[in-house]
């Protein structure tokens, strides 16, 4: 009897080894996809679309060695496949390369404006990226002005691949004055609640990547309605993520002065609860330090500081109001999350207006927003005076 049991134990242990190593793929056999571009090739009659999926695969040999002038080997290779569905396209790619496409290191998804201009297509396209277990939730999504796969062909100077370049560009510090990118986990949330939203846009201009404006998308059918240009996007920054405001230029004493955001906060409050005349107050608290000054005035006086602050307040207010104006009156879509304020603070009211918030009756476009800015200069830089009139050595 004990003999049998020992045998059973040995057989059981053997069983573990018999199954082999399922799911095992050595790292060198993986084709790391770092960027994916999705373009619309043509619209078929029966409500289906022909999509082009372009995957950017890493070429490890070139992507990890430092580049020198003579050796201009590209750190990536792009593979394009067209199909009606992205998953089928991804499967087709296996036939084109000996590597198995591997999406866990995917950094960016680029979707062309053409895709967004079709109602509902954007959500359908994103479905596979949200659903697939291999993908991370933090993949950044960008809209491209022209063909998305053109961006993937851009060869950046420092980074090895355009995808990594975009990934790092969007992460670039709080003072860069750049918008936070939309990640797929955030998009899923937006899709579910049918919110209107904006997605940052990238475009190629003079063979440089430009990342300074956003696309506004209607929540009800996920169709793009327009863009906010670079200036309006700056105003958007002060409303949605003020600390990322970057630097702002103001006029003082006839000369320009550059102030960098050190800290900023924006508060939105509902001040009138009447459905038809909703009124919001938006207050921007801005703190900055002077980084550059053309001119010779002494900045470290009560009078000049107050003057600079007033100039700043005026400029910021103008920017913010322009953005609100455009969003409210032209697009009539609440991408600024005013609705969130009501939902959070006045839920009963929100329940009565949610279906007509930025659609139907569109209470959002009927509401008024009172913008207040309070600017505060906390420092004039490491040195106040670089030069000053009438202080020549006597």
């Amino acid at each position, binding site marked *: *009897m*004990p003999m049998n*049991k*020992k045998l059973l*134990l040995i057989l059981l242990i053997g069983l*573990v*080894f018999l*199954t*082999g*190593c399922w*799911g*095992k*793929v*050595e*790292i*060198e056999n*993986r084709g*790391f996809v*770092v960027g994916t571009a999705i373009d619309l090739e043509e619209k078929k009659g029966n409500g289906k679309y022909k999509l082009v999926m372009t995957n950017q695969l*890493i070429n*490890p*040999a070139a*992507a*990890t*060695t430092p580049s020198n002038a003579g050796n201009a080997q590209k750190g990536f290779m792009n593979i394009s496949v067209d199909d009606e569905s992205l998953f089928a396209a991804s499967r087709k790619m296996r036939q084109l390369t000996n590597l198995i496409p*591997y999406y*866990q*290191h995917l*950094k960016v998804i680029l979707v062309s404006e053409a895709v967004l201009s079709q109602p509902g297509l954007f959500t359908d396209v994103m479905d596979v990226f949200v659903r697939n277990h*291999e993908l*991370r939730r933090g993949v950044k999504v960008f809209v491209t002005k022209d063909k998305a796969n053109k961006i993937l062909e851009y060869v950046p100077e420092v980074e090895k691949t355009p995808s*990594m370049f975009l990934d790092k560009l969007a992460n670039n510090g709080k003072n860069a004055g750049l918008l936070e990118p939309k990640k797929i986990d955030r998009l899923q949330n937006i899709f579910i609640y049918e919110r209107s939203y904006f997605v940052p846009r990238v475009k190629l201009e003079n063979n440089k990547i430009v990342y300074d404006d956003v696309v506004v998308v209607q929540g009800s059918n996920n169709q793009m309605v327009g863009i906010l240009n670079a200036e309006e996007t700056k105003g958007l920054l002060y409303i949605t993520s003020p600390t990322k405001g970057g630097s702002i230029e103001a006029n003082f004493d006839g000369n320009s002065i550059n102030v960098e955001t050190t800290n900023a906060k924006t508060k939105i409050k509902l001040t009138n609860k009447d459905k038809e005349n909703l009124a919001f107050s938006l207050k921007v608290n801005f703190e900055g330090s002077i980084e550059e000054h053309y001119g010779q005035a002494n900045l470290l006086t009560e009078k000049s500081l107050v003057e600079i602050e007033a100039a700043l307040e005026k400029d910021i207010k103008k920017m913010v109001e322009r953005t609100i104006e455009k969003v409210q009156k032209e697009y009539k879509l609440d991408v600024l999350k005013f609705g969130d304020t009501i939902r959070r603070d006045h839920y009963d009211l929100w329940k009565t207006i949610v279906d007509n918030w930025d659609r139907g009756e569109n209470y959002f476009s009927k509401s008024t927003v009172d913008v207040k800015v309070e600017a505060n200069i906390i420092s004039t830089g490491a040195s106040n005076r670089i030069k000053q009139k009438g202080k020549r050595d006597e």
Partner: protein
Amino acid sequence: MARTSFFNRRKMKTSKSKQENQIKTTIELGTNLADNLKNIRTLLGEPGDLIIRETTLGETDTKCAIVYLSGLVDQDLVNNNILKVIQSNINEIDTNRINEVFQQIIAITDIKKGTKFDDVINSLLSGSTLFYLDDMDTVLILGTTGGERRSIEEPQSEALIRGPREGFVESVHTNIALLRRDIKNPNLRFKSYEVGKKSKRTIVVSYLEGIINPTLLKEVNRRLKSINLDIVSESGFLEQWIEDSFLSPFPQMINTERPDRVSSSLLQGKVAILVDGTPFALIAPITYSETLKSLEDYYERWLVGTLIRILRYLGTFIALFLPAIYIALVSYHQGMIPTELAFSIALTREGVPFPSFVEALLMIITMEILQEAGARLPKNLGQTIGIVGGLVIGEAAVSASIVSPVMVIVVGLTAISSFTNPSYSAGIGFRMLRLTFMIAAAILGLYGIILAYIMLNIHIANLKSFGVPYSAPFAPTYFSDWKDTIIRVPITMLEKQPKYMKIEDSKAKSNEEEQK
């Protein structure tokens, strides 16, 4: 259904262990001196180191003989305190002569009377001098144990930067003296056993009366009595005989050469077992966290001590898991490697013909071979190992694309980390476990590592060292003992003995006994 004996590791072989420690002979002590001496000669096979000096008691005609084994005795003692006094003026000897010699003449403090030939011969073999007197069937056993032994040196296997430089030696008497010097306390107890069927060894159990838990002492004594070995030439024999689980990769006793380590353990209510002939003493019971403690943690200031301890835990973790994690990440979970690192690992593995498991196995086995070869090599050949191991195998294997450079880093880090374990015996266990984890990682990736880790934890939770849970003070939770585990709090807060030793019980009991 009865459990199979395969798993039933607690079963003790007590039935067989009827003591047969004595060397049995059929020879009896006679009254004739010449016959007695002949008996000894024939029993030992007339060896060259057997010295028999026949003489007469002083100026009388009474014949007597001194018998000893040269090399085992203190020659000066024999010459000055025995031979000289016997040969000097003794005129009359009364009927009860042996008593007189015993009481008055011989100038040695440690004197016993021997009436059994077996006792006598055992004493002779352990360095005593025998004194025979004609017409008597009683022999005097004179404690003259001495001879050349190693002097006290710094411990080789447990060198500390700060701390006493004295280490145990092979003589158990010297070792006892070293402990006595450390703990000047009347409650310090040394209990001797003679163990071994073919050759007897002195084993000394040391403890502090009043601090030790009586049940622990009883258990230690029970286990020691069950020993049924031919010879106990090292404390390792003893350890393997009395340990709780012989299938466990973890040592259930600590061996140490340091008297200060033993005395600090005794003060915590533990038992130390000293074996004659080896400088390694055993400390029991221990817990897992004990194997990662070094005395230097206490000798340095507490912040330093804590930092070093945390480093040691980290080192153990690396030594155990790093190759396995490397295999799991590179073969299964490439998504968990930071992007840039993943690319460079992919690049370095380009051209390596083996899967990462084989690659890791090759390097780990190479490292183990180097380690083993280095340990056995004479000191002046040690450099060769360094050159062959580091340069030839490390460098060349990479340039020949047999292994990737990252693998060399992993193996190197693992090797260095495994030396952070202050206990060599515990370190060996980890070397075995490391292979297990690597296999688990190769089969099932991180999932496999976790499975193997759970199994290991189940084993640790199940393991006991002389009744003390191996995972204490974590698994039976004694929060107050956590002060001296991963962190080491200031010495002013470490007044109390560990709770898991159940010392309170013993104190209460001894108090009761005193009242009675």
